[in-house]
């Protein structure tokens, strides 16, 4: 990087940040002026086209003997500049027996592009996405066996909006993990590595393991482990045969991985609050101790976040949903509560917090989630609802610069572990 490049980057960003307010969109304003009259005579276009055809023909003759190179499958390209992902994959109940289909949807329109049924006798258990909002990895497990260790089967799901059927599902050569309970799943932004948070399914229940696999070859690339049961927020460990609930986040161009940990004081301890933390693990460095080789980037005492916090892809911001209650007038069953929902962004380098958005509801029950965040944490997709099984299910929307813009509701977004982008 040259000095001039640095200077251009710094100056343009500084200049851009002086613009902080713009007027709202007015879709009723008159259309822009039409194109001015042509500056060239009408015969120029066909003559130019003919010249272009001749040039193209000459080029084709010249390049026809150039040998073809190997065909390289395209790698996922991240949404430009961390733009809001348009397409998501999520699990949705197929019937009362908790069989889950995989749904591919369009966040902006609310349309479902595809509903993928699992192979017979199985159910989709987890899904995770790369940074391009087109590439996903999902796993299936035998249905009707919650609570028992299960072998899983891994699939790569690539979506092609506008095409029929709109997706391609390919089985991956990843291990079936039959000895483990999968606590967390995260596909790298590039789509070529899969991180798995694991706990033993039956023996040595204090062990916590993080493994990284090559998606294309199934090769185990790195393993870290610990017997510190705080890792992966042990209070909320996933039970065998159920979907993973530990969120893992790839950060810094897939060079590090953020994972949660939570210390819960032993029962009966007085005056000691629990501590919720996010740890960052450099996956490019050697080592195999999950705790010793990682560092705490965020922590909160007491209740901490209402749900597990989200770590942005630059690793510099932790977004945390927060709830506070105020009891209003009334007695018994007529008591009302005013609930303030807030989404807080903690700056890791500055150790400061700011409120991204705040909403107040007066109802008995509220769910709250942060589902996606831009690399800087300035734009987030949030959701909250008054009750989990009511329709409409929630208030899904984009928050940017303190403003909430509603998005079409998608019922399954309210269920852990949420959608994959």
């Amino acid at each position, binding site marked *: 990087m040259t000095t001039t490049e640095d200077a251009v980057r710094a100056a343009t960003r500084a200049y851009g*940040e002086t613009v902080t307010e713009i*007027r709202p969109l007015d879709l009723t304003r008159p259309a822009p002026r039409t194109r001015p009259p042509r500056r060239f005579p009408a015969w120029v276009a066909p003559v130019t086209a003919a010249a272009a055809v001749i040039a193209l023909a000459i080029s084709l003759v010249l390049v026809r003997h150039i040998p073809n190179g190997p065909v390289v499958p395209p790698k996922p390209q991240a949404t*430009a500049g961390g733009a809001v992902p348009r397409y998501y994959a999520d699990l949705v109940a197929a019937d009362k027996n908790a069989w889950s289909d995989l749904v591919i949807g369009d966040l*902006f329109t*609310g*349309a479902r592009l595809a509903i993928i049924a699992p192979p017979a006798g199985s159910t989709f258990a987890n899904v995770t996405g790369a940074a391009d909002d087109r590439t996903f990895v999902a796993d299936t497990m035998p249905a009707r066996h919650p609570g028992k260790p299960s072998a899983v089967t891994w699939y790569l799901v690539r979506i092609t909006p506008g095409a029929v059927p709109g997706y391609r599902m390919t089985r991956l050569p990843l291990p079936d993990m039959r000895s483990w309970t999968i606590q967390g799943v995260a596909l790298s932004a590039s789509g070529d590595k899969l991180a798995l948070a694991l706990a033993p399914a039956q023996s040595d229940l204090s062990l916590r393991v993080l493994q990284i696999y090559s998606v294309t070859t199934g090769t185990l690339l790195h393993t870290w482990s610990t017997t510190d049961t705080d890792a992966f927020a042990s209070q909320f460990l996933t039970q065998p045969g159920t979907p993973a609930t530990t969120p893992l986040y790839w950060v810094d161009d897939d060079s590090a991985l953020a994972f949660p940990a939570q210390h819960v004081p032993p029962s009966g301890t007085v005056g000691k609050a629990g501590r919720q933390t996010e740890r960052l693990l450099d996956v490019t460095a050697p080592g195999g101790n999950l705790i010793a080789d990682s560092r705490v980037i965020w922590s909160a005492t007491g209740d901490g976040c209402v749900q597990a916090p989200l770590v942005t892809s630059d690793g510099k911001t932790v977004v945390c949903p927060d709830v506070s209650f105020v009891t209003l007038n009334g007695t018994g069953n007529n008591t009302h509560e005013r609930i303030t929902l807030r989404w807080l962004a903690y700056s890791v380098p500055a150790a400061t917090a700011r409120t991204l958005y705040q909403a107040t509801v007066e109802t008995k029950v509220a769910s709250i989630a942060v589902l996606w965040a831009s690399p800087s944490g300035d734009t987030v997709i949030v959701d909250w609802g008054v009750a989990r099984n009511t329709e409409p299910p929630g208030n899904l929307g984009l928050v940017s610069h303190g403003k909430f813009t509603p998005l079409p509701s998608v019922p399954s977004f309210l269920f852990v572990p949420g959608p994959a982008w």
Partner: protein
Amino acid sequence: MGTANTELPPPATHVVTALYAVHALGLVRLAVMMLGDQAAAEDVVQDAFLGLYRRWDSLPDASHPLAYVRASVLNGCRSALRTRSRHRRGPVLSQPPAESAEARALLSEEHRSVVTAIRGLPARQREALLLRYYLDMSEDEAARAMGVSRGTVKSATSRALAAVGRILKEEP
């Protein structure tokens, strides 16, 4: 678990408004750097989103509305610069920058020199430089946004950097 959701897509108004809420500020900032005038920049961005809204049902690639809007903003900036240069009968790039009072107060002298140097570049070089270093686009992404080849982006960026470096060195 949840129940089936309605399959009816919302009107284009909803989608375009959501896109505007998220991306308009960044695009206005880009246009301000192209034009040096926030009011004109906001007009260009409004027109781009209005165009998206009116063409929503016939977009060539509805899966990339942001790419469409970004290209529209660049086109709008080019048109505005052409119109301005015709009206002023002189090289638009020699016009003093129309910075806001806030920009004047907040920008350091060094940043101001760089911004002024960027404003002095030919439009294509300025576009390439801003897309590559302000929006952090790859050469391929910038080429798609500008509607030119990757080689053109590479050479325009290289010339722009050389010109900015030269101008900064010449400053007392």
